[in-house]
Structures are given as C-alpha cells and as structure tokens.
C-alpha cells in the first residue's frame, strides 16, 4: 500500500510564506512535496497519463502565476492546490462527466468476514480498482480519493469540494455504496462469465 504523506500544517504554512516572498527554493520545495499527492489525485481521475501530466503542470504553473499576481493563497496550500486540480479536471471534462448509475443509497446488504463480497473486494487488483473508481460520478470519485486515498480530514475535503461537512458525510457514504454496487456487478459478471 502506498500512502503519500503531505508535509504537516506548520511546515506547509512556513513553505507557503517563503514562497509568497518569492523564494524559489521554497517554490521548488512545494513542487517536490505536493506534486505526488496532486498528481495522484488527478491521475486517478484521468485515464491518460500525458493528459494527467498536463493538468498537473497547469496546477503548479497557476500557482507560480498566482505568486506573481499576488493572489496566491495565504493559508491551506493543500486545499488551494487540490481545488485548482479539481477545477482543471472539471474544465477539461465538463462537470457532468458521470455514469447514469441509478442511486443505490440504501443498498446495504448484511455481511461478515466470510462474505463473498468482502473476499472479492480484497481480491481486486489496482487496475480493476481504478476502473471501478472511474465509473463513479465526479464528486464521488473526488471524495473517496481525498478521504481514503489522501487521508485528508473531513473539513479539508469539505473546503476543497466547496461543500459543508455534513454534505461531505452524506456524499462519502453514497460514494462508497455506489462503489460497492459497481464491484458487486463486476463480481457477478465474473461468477457468471
């Protein structure tokens, strides 16, 4: 399992302050530290690698431009970067890029550890996992990547997605259950096929 650890908040604020003073060391340090999580976020959403690189490059070039135009963020650098990354993806694909999956909010079968569902989930490899994740609606992908993938807090995720914390709570719940239903489809296809 690969977890990308972001710099802690005090370190992030220090770096951001230095970057705002125009220190190139700090700007490049921000690039080195924040590219992996930002790229991971974009890459999971975007199929083509070259496109993901272009979008990620736009995020950091925008950051450099923002520093120049003195409209760079004053705090929560990570929130700013993820927000811009999200906007880049939306601008590229259009906001409504999603599958017409019928809502399955209440789809909650009982299960235990020997459950074939859990066993199947554990057997899913990275490629199939990505495939399943990309079948979710945009905001559902985002919330899962930020909460489970990047391990951001509820508040941070809410800031990035521009939603209230209670809306994020519902969204992540809906998202995970939609993901389960997609996995369930994959499992039954495998069993029957």
């Amino acid at each position, binding site marked *: *399992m690969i*977890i990308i650890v972001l710099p802690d908040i005090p370190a992030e604020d220090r770096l951001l302050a230095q970057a705002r003073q*125009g*220190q*190139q*060391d700090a700007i*490049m340090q921000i*690039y*080195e530290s924040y*590219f*992996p999580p930002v790229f*991971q976020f974009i*890459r*999971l959403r975007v199929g*083509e*690698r*070259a496109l993901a*690189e*272009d979008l990620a*490059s736009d995020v*950091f*070039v925008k950051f450099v*431009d923002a520093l*120049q135009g003195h409209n760079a963020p004053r705090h929560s650098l990570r929130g700013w970067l993820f927000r811009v990354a999200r906007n880049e993806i939306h601008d590229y694909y259009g906001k*409504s*890029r*999603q*599958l017409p999956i019928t*809502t399955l*909010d*209440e789809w*909650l*079968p*009982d299960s*235990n*550890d020997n*459950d074939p*569902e859990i066993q199947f*989930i*554990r057997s899913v*490899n*990275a*490629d199939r*996992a*990505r*495939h399943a*994740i*990309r*079948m979710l609606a945009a905001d*559902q992908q985002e919330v899962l990547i930020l*909460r*489970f*993938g990047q391990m951001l807090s*509820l508040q941070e995720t809410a800031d990035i997605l521009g939603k209230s914390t209670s809306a994020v*709570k519902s969204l992540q*719940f809906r998202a*995970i259950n939609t*993901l*389960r239903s997609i*996995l369930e489809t994959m499992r039954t296809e495998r069993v029957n096929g």
Partner: protein
Amino acid sequence: MADQDMLTAFNNCIDSLAAGNSVDDCVRHYPRFAPALRPMLEAGQLLPRAQFSPAEIQESQDRVRFRVVQALSSRRERTRSPIRRLMPLVASLILIFILALGATSILAESSLPGDTLYGMKRLTENIRLLFTSNRDALEPQFNQRRIGEIEQLLAQQREAVVEFEGTVEAINSTEWLVAGLRLHISPETILHASLQVGSVVEVSAATMQNGQIVAVSIRKISGEPITPPVPPTGVSSHTPTLSPSPTLSQTPTLTQTATLEPPPRMPTSETACVPTQPQGWLVYSVQPNDSLSGIATSTGTTLEVLMRVNCLTDRNLIVTGQRLYVPTLPITRETQESPVARGTEVENRGANGGNSGTGSSSSGPGSDDDRDDSSGSEGNDSGRGSGDG
C-alpha cells in the same frame, strides 16, 4: 436516507483508518453498525490500492518539473523589464536608499539566487553599472559572479533559476558546455536561432538537486562568434577558439564527448567522406518541408555538425525520405518561439500531445493501463449530460 448515526460512524471510521488503525479497530466501537460498516470500509481500502506507484509518479514529476521551472524563469523575465525601463528615472533615489541600507546590501552580497536578499544584490549591481564609466570591465565581472553563484548552488544541492552569459565551448546532443558549465539540454529547452561553438549566449537555466544544470533557454547575444572579452578567471583556463584543431580534447571535463564533437569543419577539401553514425545518434528520415538548419536546431546540434557527420556539401539540398544521422529526434519548435506559451491552454495541450507523439522519450510503460482506461472513459462519456445524482 441512512440515519445520522450511521453517517457519523462511517466518517469516524474513515478518520480511524487514516490514523493507521485497522477496519476491525473501528468497527468494534459500533457493534450495531458493524455488519454494514465492514464492507464499506473494505471497499474504501481500494483507494490506497488503486494509487499509482511512486516510480511512476516520480517519472511524471521529473517530466513536469521543467515546465514549472520554465514558468518561474519567464516570471522573472516579465517582472524585470519594467524595472529596467524605469531605472534611469529613479536611479538617484534608489542610490540614496541603497546607501541608507548599506548594511543590508553588504549582507546581500553573499546571497544566492532564490534568497530573499538576492534581488537587492542584483539591484546594487545594476546601479553600479548605471553609474560606472567602465561598464565593459564591470559586466564580465558581474557575470563571473553569476557563474560562481551557480557553482555554489550546485555544491549546496539547491534548486534555483539562474541566468548567465558565456561562450558556447562545446555542443553535444544532450550536454553543452557554456562558460565552463555543463548544461543539460532537455527536449523542451528553447534554442534561439542557430547556435554554434563560439557563439556568445545568454542562458536561462535551473540548478537541480542532483547537481545538474538544466537549460531553459539559450539565446545568442552576439551575432558572430567572437573570442570572449574576458577569459573566465579561475573557473577554467581553457579558451575556446574556432581553430579547426581539436581543442576540445583539452577541456578536462569533456574528454569523453570530445571524440563525438570535433569542431565544425566544412567538408570542402575532403577526398572521400563516409557518413558514420556517432555513438548515441539516431537515424532520421527527412520529412516534407524539413530544412537542414531546422533539423539542426530541433535536434540540438548545429548545421555544420550535421553536414559534416552526414557528409553533406550543400546546406539547401536534402530530399524527403533521405536518411540522416541526428543526435535526437527532431521536435517541432514553432510553439516554443515565445518562451511562455500560456496563451491558450488547449493549444498547450495539443503541443504537448504532439511532442509525446513523436515518441522521443515519453511514456513507454503504463500502456496497458491506458487500454483499460479507454474502455472506462467510453462508458463514462455515454453518461455525459445526465443530471447530478
């Protein structure tokens, strides 16, 4: 709608997983929800599993870094020019200011590119240039400081955007020697006009943590190759010349490449020239509308070298389909004429896609992933326009 306690329990468990606990650790606290929570949290485990490998991320990070450095360096160019224009007007005022802040500027003297006080150092220099009667002596002296700074940055393994002037001392496909510094030429380096050994150039570059200097752009500042006004003091005792003798082998740092790049020589009196493929060079098939000088520029070499290696005598005579030895595969340069091609992003993207299309060095691995993606995105496209859930 699922009840609030369930939403909260699920949310707390996500935080618990983020803190490094297991699924069981959290589910235990919510016996009532355990059967429902467990498969949800298991499904959440797919997110970390779906992440791309650090090696792949690193590769992309290395590719994109250049564009960020380029943005940083063009930012410097944009911000610098108005100051230059205003300089004569406010110079006297600034001079007084500088005198008042003498102590600060002394501190600034030892600063490096990227430091807060570095701007002050450069400003002090520019003011000295403005008031000096001996500009010709000061300028090379200041340029020498630039080169000294770069060496310090490299020694300290710091990343910074740097600029300096110097004479091109050697040209290899991916590495040039300018003013005693080895410059790494990436496929995205912008090479202005025809450059050759002996050209006096202005270099914009970035120092990397690995001790490399990556060239962002190289621009010729004097039309004809001349002997540099002041030989670099202390850095290199080697004086670049244009004489046809293989002077490059005297450069201690470039001995291994010297055989690849003897100084350019027009093959006028050659008796029998046989094209031989230099080590590391590739075969390129001439495309319609190619020009020899265009190929030279876009492959990071010079017309003369290209002609000599390929035994060409007429610079205007190449035909479509003709096979040439080139240091790297040519890359279309049109979009890079202005260093900041930030005009329209779509254009940018197109250009980048084009670059990877030439297949010079970009993504080899991950192709099977992309195959998987294409089916996924087709599925998604079909759902475009449907309302939010």
